[in-house]
C-alpha cells in the first residue's frame, strides 16, 4: 500500500511541475483579456520580419552540417572496423571534447582565433579566406563549430548502426566483385545504415535549430537568435515562439523514432 501512495505522490508532483507551465504557456498564447480567444499570436510569428530569412538560414546551416558530419564520420568509422582499430581511442576522444568544453568557452576561443587571425594575416591572401568564412549569409565558421558539436551524437548513432552490420564481409564482397570505393560507400554501406544515418541527421538538425549561445555571441541571426530578438516586448509572441520551438523538437524526435522503427 505504501508503494502505491508514494508512486501516486511522485507522479502527481511531476505532473504538476511539468504540465502546469506548459498549459499556462499555451493558454497565455491563445487567450487575451481584451480580445478573448484568438490564434493571432501564432499568425504574428509568420508575418514577423525576418522569419523566413532566419529559418532558411538555419535550415541551410543544418543541411551543410548534416552532409559534413556524415562525410567526416562515416569513413572514419568504417576504417575502425576495416583494419585500423587504433583509431577508435582517437575518435572517442574527439567525440568527448564537446561534452567537456562548454559552448560559451568554445565561442570565446573561436572569436579570439578569428580576431587574432585577421590581424596576423591582414597582408596575405589568407585574409580574404578568413573574411569569407565569416560571411553573414552563410557563416562557414558556424558550420564548422556545429559539426564539432554534432559529432558526438552522429558518432554514437552511426556506431550503433554499424554494430548491426557485418561491414567487413559486405565491403570485401563488393570489392571482390569490382565495386569502387565510392560505390561501396554509397550503394552498399549506406543503404544498410538508413536508420542510423537518419538518426545522426535529425540529431544534428535538432542541434542547429536550437543552438543559441555560439550564434548569438558571434552575431549571426540564425532562427534561435531571431526568436529572441523578435520577442522584444511582445510577451504573447515570445511565448508562442517557445511553444512552437517545443513543438519542433517533438516533431523531430517523432520523425527520428519513426525512421528508427520502420527499418527494423
Amino acid at each position: 500500500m505504501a508503494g502505491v501512495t508514494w508512486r501516486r505522490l511522485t507522479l502527481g508532483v511531476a505532473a504538476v511541475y511539468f504540465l502546469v507551465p506548459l498549459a499556462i504557456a499555451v493558454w497565455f498564447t491563445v487567450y487575451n483579456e481584451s480580445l478573448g480567444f484568438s490564434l493571432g499570436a501564432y499568425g504574428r510569428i509568420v508575418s514577423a520580419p525576418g522569419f523566413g530569412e532566419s529559418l532558411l538560414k538555419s535550415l541551410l546551416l543544418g543541411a551543410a552540417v548534416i552532409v559534413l558530419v556524415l562525410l567526416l564520420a562515416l569513413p572514419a568509422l568504417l576504417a575502425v572496423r576495416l583494419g585500423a582499430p587504433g583509431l577508435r581511442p582517437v575518435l572517442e576522444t574527439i567525440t568527448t571534447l564537446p561534452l567537456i568544453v562548454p559552448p560559451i568557452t568554445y565561442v570565446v576561443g573561436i572569436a579570439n582565433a578569428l580576431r587574432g587571425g585577421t590581424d596576423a594575416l591582414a597582408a596575405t591572401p589568407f585574409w580574404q579566406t578568413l573574411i569569407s568564412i565569416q560571411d553573414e549569409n552563410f557563416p562557414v565558421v558556424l558550420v564548422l563549430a556545429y559539426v564539432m558539436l554534432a559529432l558526438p551524437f552522429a558518432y554514437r548513432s552511426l556506431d550503433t548502426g554499424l554494430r548491426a552490420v557485418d561491414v567487413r564481409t559486405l565491403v570485401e564482397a563488393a570489392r571482390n566483385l569490382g565495386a569502387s570505393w565510392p560505390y561501396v560507400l554509397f550503394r552498399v554501406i549506406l543503404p544498410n545504415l538508413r536508420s542510423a544515418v537518419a538518426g545522426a541527421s535529425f540529431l544534428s538538425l535538432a542541434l542547429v535549430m536550437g543552438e543559441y549561445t555560439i550564434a548569438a555571441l558571434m552575431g549571426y541571426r540564425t532562427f534561435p537568435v531571431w526568436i529572441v530578438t523578435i520577442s522584444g516586448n511582445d510577451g504573447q509572441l515570445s511565448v508562442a515562439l517557445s511553444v512552437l520551438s517545443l513543438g519542433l523538437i517533438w516533431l523531430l524526435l517523432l520523425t527520428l523514432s519513426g525512421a528508427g522503427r520502420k527499418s527494423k
Partner: protein
Amino acid sequence: MAGLTGSRRRGGGAGWLAAAPLLVVTLIAFGIPAVVLVVGAFSVKGGGFGFENLSATMREPYIGALWSSVKLSAVVAIGGAVLGAFLAQAVLTSRSGLLREAVLTASGVLANFGGVPLAFIWIATLGNSGVVTAALGLGSGVLYNFWGLALVYLYFSVPLMVLVIAPALDGLKPQWREAALNNGASTWQFWRHVGIPVLGPALLGGGVLLFGGAFAAYATAAAMVGASVPLVTLQIADALTGNVLIGYENIALALSLDMIVIALLVMAVYLPLQKRSSRWLA
C-alpha cells in the same frame, strides 16, 4: 601469414587516410581555438606570459560567479538525479505501458528543451506578472534568484535523468528483489545493499551529465536573471561582448579555462563510470 599481416598493415594506413578529413577538421575547428584560448589565458598585458589573468579570476567578482555556478550546478545535479530516479522508478513500476511510453517520449522532448524558450515559458508561469504568481499572490521576484534558476534548470535536468536511469532500472531484475526479500531483507536493506550499488554508476554518471548541462547553460540564465545571479557564463559573455571595460578579453579566456578545468575534473569521474555501467546494461 606474412601476407595477411602485410595487408593488415596497409589497411591500417588506408584507415588513417580515411579518417584524415575528420582529424584535419578537428585540428582546425577545435585545435586552433583551444591553442588561442590557452595562450591568451596566460598572456599578460605588457607582452609575455604569466598567471595575471588566472589569478584575477580567483578574485571578486569572478570567483563569486565561479562559485555560484558550481553551487547551482551541484544543486541541479543532486536534485535532478534524485528526483529523476524517483520519477523513473514510479513510472517503470506502474505497469501501465501507456504511461511509460508517454513519460519516456516527453522526457526525450523536455531534455532537449532549453535556452531562451524555456525561460519564456517559466516567466509566463512564475515571472513577476506570471499566471501562477498572480493566482497565488506570490509577489515579485520569485523566479529571479538562485533557487528560481535551479527550479527552471530542473525542467530539462529531471527528464534527462529519467532517460539515463531508465535502462539501468530496467536492468534491476525483480528476481534480485524477491531473493533479497525471501532471505529476510527489508526494502531499505535491498536498496542499500543491492539496488543502489547496481545503480550507482548510472546515478553518478547521470549526475555528472546534469552538472555539465547546468554548468554550461547560458541562454536561459541570460534571459531570466540578467545580472542578479552572478554566473560564470554570464561573466564570460559580458567580457566577450564588451559590456565591461576594454582590456578584459583575456579575463574571458582565463574564465573559460577555469570552466574547462572544472568540467574536466567532473568528467574525469564520469568516463570510467560510463564503462562500468555499460557492463550492467549488457
